[in-house]
């Protein structure tokens, strides 16, 4: 049986302005706000990897990564390689 995917939420605090969008709209209440209003990961296991937080963070401060995805997924690797190649060409 396919194992349930898990995800890691990386927050780059230097760029986070504590707007609260990620905390408010995460459908699984993965985050809570600390005293400064910045998100802290309260329950990583609940994350479904929808990337709503990553796409809506106005400050590019959130990165979601899949953990234990089979070989970090062959598809992801292809995308990565092609962009590196493209960058080289440019």
């Amino acid at each position, binding site marked *: 049986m396919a194992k349930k995917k898990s995800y890691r939420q990386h927050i780059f605090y230097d760029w*986070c*302005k504590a707007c609260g969008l990620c905390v408010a709209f995460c459908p699984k209440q993965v985050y809570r706000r600390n005293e400064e209003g910045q998100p802290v990961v309260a329950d990583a296991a609940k994350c479904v990897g929808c990337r709503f937080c990553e796409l*809506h963070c*106005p400050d590019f401060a959130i990165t979601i990564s899949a953990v234990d995805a089979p070989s970090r997924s062959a598809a992801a690797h292809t995308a990565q390689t092609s962009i590196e190649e493209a960058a080289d060409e440019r």
Partner: protein
Amino acid sequence: MKMEKVEQLRHYYLRHDKKFPHVWCPGCGNGIILGSLIRAIDKIGLSKDEVVLASGIGCAGRMPVYADFNTLHTTHGRALTFATGIKLARPELNLITVMGDGDATGIGGNHFIHAARRNLNLTAIIINNQIYGMTGGQYSPTTPYGAKAATATGGHLEHAFSIADLAVTAGASFVARGTVYHVPHLDKLIEQGIRKNGFAVIEIMAYCHTQFGRRNKMGDAVTMMEKLRDRAVAVKDPGAAGSPGTAVAAGASDTPGAAASAGALDSDSLDTLDGKFAIGVLTDVEKPDYIAEYARLRAASRLNAQNAGNAGK
């Protein structure tokens, strides 16, 4: 460790020599739109050198500062003017303008309608936060009737127009409306707009909680974002069925769910603080763009001149 795709995009497209976090207020949707624009350009596969990003003045107009394309930060209302000149001189480049509602349809309104009428192959992204954000909340051409603004403290006496409707009427060949809540949908609209051969307008409904929301007791960025989610209704793409404009698959909460037919919604609702408005591709028509027309005329003139020369021999 390999970088995630999203990290690669940030490293590649954001300017390393600029100060981050950027200048926009906490929670302002402008940063979300910058993300969408970068993903759309990356998806199309344009190189950074093939893209020109031009803006006017305003909070929206700050965008090119942060993006590593050929960029111009021009004067208020003149993004399309500069873009027109560049496109005529270098038609092989992809010209994208980013403007605010005041920038594009207030001081730049005349440039906007005539760029649409001319159908030059440009992409106009207009961030409609219904106010002059940068200068302190003066009303703009899209500030709704009755709303409070720094220059309408007793409630606005004038009426808002719909930017998308204006663009359709003025002759733009592609017109779409999205929001900063419906981000995957917005990515697609921007991609379609850039790919379109002709004048393409993407009106993006955003908010300015700092200058507009506060005065109108509309709450913080989160509350204003919820409002956009609830007010937007997706229309069916007037073009081919199954094209990105019809992407109304339920599921992802930031993908518009309900489908209405185009025209079912009254854009007058944008003259209110809470009426529903349409999002999606509103117009997508084929007509010769200005560059092709100009090339055709030039070829014909050459031929005429040649024939005249031959006849004289």
